[in-house]
Structures are given as C-alpha cells and as structure tokens.
C-alpha cells in the first residue's frame, strides 16, 4: 500500500508537517519569537540578506577560505601521505604524529594560530589546513599501503618503476581511498573554519561564522538559524556537486557498485 507511493511523497509530507507545526506553534504565542523565530521569519531574513548582498559576500568569504585552506591541506597531505606509506621511518614518526593530531579538534589550534599569525587571514587558513591535512595524510598512507601487491608486481614486470609506477599504478589504485580521505578532510575543514570564524572576529573578512556570531550579539535568532541553514546547505551542496558524482563515477567504472 505505502510502497505504491513515489518515494519523495512521505519525506515531503513530513517536512511540511514539521515546518507548518513549528510556524503554528510560534505564532500561537507559546514561545518568545525572539528566542525561537518562526520559519517565515528565517525565510524573510534569508531573502533580505540575499537582496542586501550581505549573505552572498559572507558566503563568498567563507568559501574562499575553505577552498584555499582545503587545497593547501590536500596538496601537502597527498605527498606527505605517500611518503609515510613509502618510507618506514617517516610512517613511524610523521604517520604517528598525524594519527594523534587528527584526533585533535582543529579549534584547538585557534589560540596558537592567533598568536603566530595575528588576527589575520593566515590564522584562519592555518586552522583550516590543520583540519584537512592530517585526515588526508592518513587516508593517503592507508590507501597506498593497501594497493594490492599483484598490481605492483604486474606493473614492475612490464618495466614500470619509480615515478611511472607511482603515477600510473599506485595512485590510480589508491584513488578511491584517497577520495574518501579528501571527503573527510573537507568535512573537518568545514567544521574548523566555522569554529574559527565564530570564535574570532577576523578583520580581513566577514564570513558565515561571523554572520552567525553577529546574529547572536544582536539577538537576531532568525539570522542565527538562517546562517545555520546556509552552512548546512553549503556542506550538502559540496558533497552533491563535487564528491558524490566523482565517487559514483569511480565506483561504477571499477565495478564496485553494489
């Protein structure tokens, strides 16, 4: 019976019910609209800040930091991870260090970053890089170590070695693992960036985190909730637009699809 309905029907109904209930509850005056704004208020804030350009500029500042920080972290992480996989003593030192630092939430870097770089763009970038780097290092190390030896042996007897072996065999074979490491790195970078932006007023740019914090200071809960929604959406979109298609293509082309 229920299986006859198209799949999106039930989630849509549930969403309408939830949002409608929320709207009704706030309007009925049982809670303070200041502390708990109705969906329509959040939407109005969204629309106003979109028109004023505030939201887009904040999103732009945040995305720029995220992309640059992530790119630096990934660009450092891939060769370092490969080195960890390749050289025993690097794995025993840097690899272990990475393992430790990866468990450290990267907000913990904020105080140091501020001391080292001042209240500047570099400080935020540093925090984002620290969020990305260790996850990528570990993922690359793991996936390189897990490349089936048979591929290496086959390639070697065909005359492949050193750089050719790395670029044509080890890296393509490790790619699925590297990608999921990148995804994790991206998620960490996103979290650490938000934390940094909320924590510190960075004079060099007003990002989404700063916008959220400003909402708190102005007691504009519609703004706080609106920014939270945008942060969520951006995270989802990055996954949907960038990681998911790449991952799907990778799985399909190698017959890993279930």
């Amino acid at each position, binding site marked *: 019976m229920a299986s006859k309905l198209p799949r999106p029907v039930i989630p849509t109904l549930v969403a309408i019910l939830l949002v409608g209930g929320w709207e009704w509850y706030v309007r009925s005056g049982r809670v303070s609209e200041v502390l708990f704004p109705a969906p329509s208020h959040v939407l109005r804030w969204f629309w106003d800040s979109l028109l004023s350009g505030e939201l887009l500029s904040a999103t732009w500042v945040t995305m720029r930091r995220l992309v640059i920080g992530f790119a630096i972290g990934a660009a450092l992480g891939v060769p370092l991870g490969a080195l960890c996989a390749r050289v025993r003593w690097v794995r025993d030192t840097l690899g272990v260090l990475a393992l430790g630092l990866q468990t450290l939430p990267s907000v913990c870097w904020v105080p140091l970053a501020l001391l080292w770089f001042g209240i500047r763009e570099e400080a935020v970038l540093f925090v984002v890089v620290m969020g990305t780097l260790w996850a990528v290092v570990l993922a690359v190390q793991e996936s390189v170590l897990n490349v089936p030896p*048979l591929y290496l042996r*086959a390639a070697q*007897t065909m*005359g*492949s070695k050193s750089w050719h072996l790395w670029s044509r065999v080890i890296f393509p074979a490790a790619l699925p693992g590297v990608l999921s490491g990148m995804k994790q790195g991206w998620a960490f970078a996103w979290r650490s960036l938000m934390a940094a932006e909320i924590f510190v007023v960075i004079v060099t740019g007003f990002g989404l985190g700063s916008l959220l914090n400003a909402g708190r200071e102005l007691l504009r809960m519609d703004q706080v909730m609106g920014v939270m929604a945008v942060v969520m959406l951006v995270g989802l979109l990055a996954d949907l637009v960038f990681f998911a298609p790449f991952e799907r293509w990778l799985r399909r082309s190698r017959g890993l699809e279930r």
Partner: protein
Amino acid sequence: MGLRSEPTAASAALTLRHVTKRFDGASGQVTALEDITLEVREGEFLAIVGPSGCGKSTLLSLLAGLEHTNEGTINLGDQPVEAPGRDRLVMFQQDALFPWLNVLENVLFGLRLKPDLTEAERIESARYYLNLVGLGDKERARPHELSGGMRQRVALARSLAPNPRVLLMDEPFSALDALTREQLYGDLQGIFTKRKKTIVLVTHNIREAVCLGDRVVLFSPNPGKVQQVFDIGLPRPRRLNDPALASLAAEVTEALTSHPAK
C-alpha cells in the same frame, strides 16, 4: 626490441644454480624450492608441471626478479637477476588487470613502456593481440565487465603484446574453455616459432605441457624439487589429439603419480 642478435643456438637464457627459496609463513617456515639447478635455453619453450604447492609460481617470481633466492643464483644470460625488468614479462596465475583502465589501455600499458614505438604502432599492436585472443570487440570494456576467461585472455594479450625476450606464464589457460584453449595453443606456438621467444610455462595440465613444451620439467612437492625432465621431440605445430603426444603425456602422468606421496 626486434630480433635478438646472439645466435648461439644452445646458449642459456636463464640459469638457475642450487636455488633454494624459503618463506616465513604464518604456520612456520616453508621451503618452497630446494636446490633447483635448471637451465632454460635461448629460444626454448619450457613447460613446468607438478602438483599444487610445489613451488611453480615461486619459481616464476624468482625468475622475474620479484622475489630473491635464499641460496643459489639465477642468471639471465650472463647477468644475475636482481630486479624485475621489461625483458622478463610475467603473466600471473590470477589475472592482474588494472581496474582503472579499459581493455585496450591494459594491453597498451606494457607497450607504452617501450620507448622505441610510436603511439600508432602501439595501438595497432594492442589491437592485433586483442583480435588474436578473440576480444577485438571488447577494447572499450572495463575488466569487471568481462568473464573470468575473457579477463585471462586480455591478460594473455597484455603479456604477449610487448614482445618480451622471456615470457613467464603461470597457468595462463586454466580459466578457458577447451575450444578457446586449443585455438590459443596454436596461436602461442605460432608466436613462439615466429618471434623466437624463450617461454617458461607453468601448468597443471600435462597434455598442455607436452603439447607446448620443448622440454617438460616435472616438479615434486615438499620441498619443491626437480623430479624428472622430459624431452619432447615432436614436430611443431602440434595438435592436442595427436596419438604420439598422448602417449608422451601418459608417460609424464605415470612419473607424476609414481612419486611417493608425502
């Protein structure tokens, strides 16, 4: 690479002297090969047969330079074998096709490592060998889209295409149906006589060994040793159902089963 210049007919391509190979496995030390002394002559087709676990695959890995001996020496010509090289190509027991490349690119992998060819020549050669194994229409397929037998045929094409000086084959035909197999016996013999290769072929199939080999080396297990060497003087091309071949195969089988089981 072209034809080789050293014409001395009886010179040895590969020489093994007192080769012993041990592994430290989970269940203690295993002596895979013990005191093997063997010569593979230049331009010879050597077939190795023996029961499972007698060290045949290990022997190929040693010849390829993928593993190192514990004792004894292996020479290629007058050079010791120390590392893998393009002159000794291995076709592995499990097809080692790369899942990130399609069939044609897999066959091209070894060809692209040969510097003295143009890309057009490489592609032509790859297609030639794919057609030879009957997979000309599958060049865009990914390995996972093929059956086990098809994958093995691609692996065969991939190992033949770069035309290596020495070809080491580990049960290359085990996953094929009888018909394809017999056709490939013919093709392999053709390539062998035309290109004057040195081939070492490992197999479980004694008829296959007798059909293809100039000599058949019978291994005995625990630890792997050379039990007996048979000279197969039959003229080529040989047919699998030739009665002379059948009686030689019976002789080898006799020797194999007469070995006291351990």
